């Protein structure tokens, strides 16, 4: 490899100094939110907001993990200069996964302010819930959640550490190992994401079922991961830490973001169309709850913000190649994903209204800041691009036709 291809030395100068303060700020937000919940005694609001914002952070890391696995599976050359950032984003799953512990502990302590299937008296009276009790019970739910998160964290760490090891020696060997594993891992991810969506989202309304919800969460994760990746890459490039990323890489990130955002709309509409057409009360109830008490407006905001506006706004080649425009739409899509998860979770939770409260905003801040802190820790002291990757020169020279 020619000397000119080596990255600028300051790529490695990304210090982890801000990680600690960020972590303190994030945990502080969570603690204040918990105190407010204890004082106001509104457990439902706190737990639903916790689940929502936790899931938002998880979709970012999960999307980055899926992105990394797909790059290895397809042996992609263009994306090498942004892959390390995606790897660092994907390992945020680890620290964020620990924040599921409060929910799991609450479940084991028989709390049913979030999941009504954990209310033994209620389940006894409800033949449908009794029938589902073999799957929907606190110990098994906890075991499953630990398995999903454990698998995702393990995959993310393997991709990240293999890639980092390749910076020092034997990049080719590391990469071929990761490539060989990426296919089976994507299959495992597909299965676990599907089951996780059933557990974390569908079981909030345990009578309702929709087999497409798994791919809905997959689409949300891809969109969230790509939007966050694009934003982080743009930010690092702006402060001069990723000079290798050219407008061509931004163009490709924009294309993927645009494509997966349309994919999300396609999946969301498919779910709606089938339920609307069949018109069976046990399925339509879920959408009915999202059309009353102000949720209809949220649904329309979602259609506009998560599909119609980005569809036209990010359509042109020029928009994807113009950093500020791309950043703007990435933010819009991330916000839309936050609203989407809010819309998926809150109408199913008894006692939640449309308007988010102080607890929601504090937890949103807390989880976003903690994700940022986890990212900074993962990136600190590392080269921000896989500098020995055999495909790096292809990526550096990459041009869109």
């Amino acid at each position, binding site marked *: 490899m020619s000397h000119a291809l080596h990255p600028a030395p300051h790529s490695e100068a990304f210090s982890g100094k801000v990680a600690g303060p960020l972590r303190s700020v994030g945990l502080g937000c969570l603690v204040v939110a918990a105190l407010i919940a204890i004082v106001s005694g509104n457990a439902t609001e706190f737990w639903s907001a916790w689940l929502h914002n936790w899931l938002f952070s998880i979709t970012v890391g999960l999307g980055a993990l899926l992105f990394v696995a797909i790059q290895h599976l397809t042996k992609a050359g263009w994306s090498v200069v942004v892959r390390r950032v995606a790897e660092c984003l994907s390992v945020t799953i680890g620290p964020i996964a620990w924040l599921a512990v409060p929910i799991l502990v609450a479940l084991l302590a028989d709390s049913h302010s979030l999941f009504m299937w954990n209310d033994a008296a209620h389940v006894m009276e409800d033949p449908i819930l009794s029938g589902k009790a073999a799957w929907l019970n606190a110990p098994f739910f906890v075991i499953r959640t630990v398995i999903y998160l454990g698998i995702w964290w393990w995959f993310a760490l393997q991709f990240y550490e293999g890639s980092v090891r390749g910076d020092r020696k034997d990049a080719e060997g590391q990469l071929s190992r990761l490539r060989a594993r990426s296919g089976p891992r994507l299959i495992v991810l597909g299965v676990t994401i599907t089951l996780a969506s059933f557990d974390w989202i569908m079981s909030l309304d345990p009578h309702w079922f929709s087999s497409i919800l798994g791919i809905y969460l997959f689409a949300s994760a891809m969109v969230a991961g790509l939007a966050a990746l694009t934003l982080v890459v743009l930010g690092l490039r702006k402060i001069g830490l990723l000079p290798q990323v050219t407008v061509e890489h931004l163009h490709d990130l924009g294309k993927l973001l645009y494509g997966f955002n349309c994919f999300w709309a396609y999946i969301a*509409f498919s779910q*709606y*169309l089938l339920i*609307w*057409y069949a*018109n069976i009360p046990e399925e339509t109830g879920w959408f009915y709850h999202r059309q009353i008490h102000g949720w209809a407006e949220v649904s329309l905001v979602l259609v506009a913000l998560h599909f119609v506006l980005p569809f036209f706004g990010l*359509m*042109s*080649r020029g928009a994807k190649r113009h950093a500020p425009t791309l950043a703007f739409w990435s933010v819009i899509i991330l916000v839309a994903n936050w609203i989407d998860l809010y819309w998926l979770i809150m109408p199913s939770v008894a006692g939640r209204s449309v308007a988010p409260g102080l607890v929601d905003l504090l937890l949103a801040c807390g989880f976003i800041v903690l994700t940022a802190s986890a990212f900074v820790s993962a990136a600190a002291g590392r080269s921000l691009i896989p500098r020995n990757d055999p495909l790096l020169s292809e990526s550096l020279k990459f*041009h869109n*036709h």
Partner: protein
Amino acid sequence: MSTTVEPTPVTTDEPEPASRLFGAIAIFESAEKLLSAATALKQSGLTKLEAHTPYPVHGIDEALRIAPTRLPWVVLAGALIGAGGAFAMQHWMNGIDYPFLISGKPLMSIPSSIPVTFEVAILLAAFAAFFGVLLFNGLPRLAHPLFRTQVFRRVTSDQFALVAESDDPRFDELRFGVITTEHGATSVESIEQDVSSVAMPTLLKAAGVSLVALALIPPVLIAQARATTSEKPRIHPIQDMDFQAKFKAQTTSPFFDDGRAMRLQISGTVARGDMPIDPAISTGYTSDAPPGPESSQWLDSIPISPTIELMARGRERFNIFCAACHGRGGDGDGIVTVRALELQQGTWVKPISLHDRSVRDQPDGRLFNTITNGVRKMPGYASQIKPEDRWAIVLYLRALQSSRNAQPADVPADVLETLRETN
């Protein structure tokens, strides 16, 4: 001249020359040389400059100062026309021209029209892209002066060419040659243009007109057939489907002695579900025909043993078959009734309450007969509900009626105690 096979020399009675200058072509060995020459030529003010390369060369757009293509706008317009047209078409066809109610959905529903809207948008976008490319590139073009030069042939394999056209006001063949050679052109040639008539040969024109005329015949014949009546039998293009080698029900067959196509049941066999049972159990009365309302020939009690399973079965069947109109409690307030009354359907008869004295006083057999054969506007359910299930429904109905007319003595003492407490 006389010994070689040269083309016929230009005859003197044609004053025009056979060709005139189209432009000049310069050949390069590499893309880099082509790019630098193109940049230099553009700087010299040439506007009509084209590059021909064996593969897409990065930076060629900038070097030739090619304006961004307008094709995306054409494609977007195609997609929007497709989406709008398909949406309007579905709404006009299904909502206005031929209103057709499907599954009780609104005549103009947005969700069901989105898949077709999407598909037609893609179709017209693809058409716009395909035909837009042809249009913007002036294609199809059957001939081009460049194909008259030998050197141009290798641009599809390993050579790079720059072509300047002579109708550019800044075109100067000599200067073109100098600049391109400075940047490494291996050869520079001028290109001649054929000036013979571009009019289409008469034969081709005649053939084209004939083809169009012939193509009009089938649609004219179809239009004629659709607009007129005919006494001839219709054409059967698929004989095997229209005339099948089989006998239909209730027809004759020369194959069997009795001349019937349908066969009789073999004596001593019973068809599934045809097991003969006591006529009283399958009808609810003991006479030969349904007796009058006050007759004593109605069965007075349920002829099968009333178990708790039968009660559960009856409740389930009642909720499936009866509750839609009669209501789960039998008050005549089922969802179909509620909806029909809401819509003010004049022909709808509200079922009377099953707790009405006139129903309560009927013998069990008469209730069974009503389920079997229907009454007033209620249709018979014999084909949907088996006799045992009809008796199960009667049993459950009796339980429903008792629930409204029970005396404290009918309730077990311990249950009565709990009821008192809850009240």
